[in-house]
């Protein structure tokens, strides 16, 4: 083999190594934007991911009675599962009551959680508007939106939950500092 051929071979081998990412799609297949949309349900605290639509607390009251009250109790209290309303002012006591109103820092999380996980027997069965309505109703039970209030993707991220400032990130994983130290 001539030195030129060796050089050529080395060049081919190097190119082959550098081209390794081209093998990527040998595993699985590309995800299409359309199918990603089907599963891309998460909602951030800035409202990113919230869908179009809206719902009122008045509408939500009936939807809650039909789908949620069996576990969470009428008015979000006294049920067999998590209490959803009340408890404000109890967090520093010996008997803290952690509810949406007393503990949850973001209203966007409420929409996300209802949408992904509730109602427990049939998660995802509520429409977008129904999910907004139940969100508004639970917030109204906590006095965070008025009884005739309405929420949508614009208003939900703007709600300042009573316990928004009640969380202290663990220093090691504080999102505000974690990747900015270096």
């Amino acid at each position, binding site marked *: 083999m001539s030195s030129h051929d060796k050089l050529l071979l080395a060049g081919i081998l190097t190119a082959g190594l550098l081209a390794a990412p081209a093998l990527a799609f040998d595993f699985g297949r590309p995800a299409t934007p359309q199918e*990603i949309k089907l599963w891309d349900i998460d909602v951030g605290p800035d409202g990113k991911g919230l869908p179009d639509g809206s719902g009122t607390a008045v509408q939500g009251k009936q939807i809650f009675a039909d789908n949620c009250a069996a576990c969470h109790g009428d008015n979000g209290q006294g049920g067999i599962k998590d209490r959803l309303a009340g408890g404000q002012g109890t967090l520093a006591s010996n008997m803290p009551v*952690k509810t949406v109103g007393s503990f949850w820092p973001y209203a966007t999380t409420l929409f*996300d959680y209802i949408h992904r996980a509730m109602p427990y027997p049939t998660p995802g069965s509520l429409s977008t508007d129904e999910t907004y309505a139940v969100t508004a109703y639970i917030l109204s039970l906590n006095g965070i939106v008025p009884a005739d209030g309405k929420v949508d993707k614009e208003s939900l991220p703007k709600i300042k939950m009573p316990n928004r400032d009640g969380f202290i990130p663990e220093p090691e994983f504080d999102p505000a500092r974690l990747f900015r130290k270096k």
Partner: protein
Amino acid sequence: MTSKTPVELLPRPANVSRRGFVGGLSAGIFGAVASEAAGAETLADVPDRGPGADLSAHSERSRFAKLDRIPEATPGKRNVDPGDAINSKTPHQKLVGNITPTDLHYERSHSGVPDIDPAQHRLLIHGMVSKPLVLNVEDLKQMPSVTRVVFIECTGNGWENWKKADPDVTVQNTHGLVSTNEWTGVPLKFLIDLVAKDKGSKWMLAEGGDGAGVDRSIPLTDEIVNEAFVAYGQNGEPLRPAHGFPMRLVMPGFEGNLNIKWLRRLKFGSEPWMTRWETARYTQLLANGKARQFQLRMETNSVITQPSGMMQIQPGYNRISGLAWSGHGKIAGVEISTDGARTWKPAQLSQPVLSKAQVRFQMDWAWDGKPTKIVSRSTDDHGNVQPDRQSFIAAMGTNALFHYNAQQTWSIDEAGRVRNVLA
């Protein structure tokens, strides 16, 4: 075992028969059945040999070994109907060695165990990536794999003892929400390269395919990127459904809820999503009403499993044994006190001692028959020392409910009864 057996090392008081002391230990390891059976007083009493049962497609546990988890609803609501349970606890008092049997690995789910056909299961990886991908289990099995022994611990482990100590509980009740298995899967780093993650993405959302769609925001620290993997194997076989079949995230050293089971989506982004799980649920409420958030790493911990709650010991020789683990790395040492935390002696560690895996410790002890308290204290290779209860509660209060790692004390009364106490 060295040639110097514990029996040689420590003289046994004349008033304790060997049968008595063996019986005491047996009750711990093999359960009620063993102690109910008539013993063999002499070798002549041992049943004759003979042909045994037919071979089978899989090996069942001996009918004499009773090993069961405890389904539990909330602290103090135990042995509930499985339909009402939210977790199921590992019987540490009956186990030996470092590895938890697969079927006894603790179980916690938030919407039951889905029955997933792997042929229909998909993992979507998308977000801040150049090449969003859809993968199935066979794709994962084709990829380079890692196999690693790792503990997984529910952040609620220890929830029995936050506010009070029920004396009538076992170590299964107090510490049954941690287990160690060998997991096999694909390094997260490999998947990150495969989809060509944007360098600006520092957080990852992992989401399960269960009814609750459990999802957590995971910071992409160097440690996590280098150590996390998507597992499809557990102790040499496919994952069990209760543990995430057909694929789950394994996050060595991090709280159980981050090890997303039935994994179906990884999304890369720039900030945490503030899911229900990292805001309303797995945060630690302090005495002042503020809550610690993103307390993701499991702490340096240990517990004596033998003897432990509800057992009975005899004066004379006793072997103390237990488990230690740390989310920071390897266990460097375990000390045991048999006088209520006044003096401490080093315990032996069973090899291998692996990073972010449980390790068994043991020590010989001659009990003089007087009431006392026994307690263990672990230290990891980062210098973290398991705190005593008093300083732990002083820092965390009694409302935190998650990440309990205070030293576990067992009291022993004059009759040898071992009971749960706070210190």
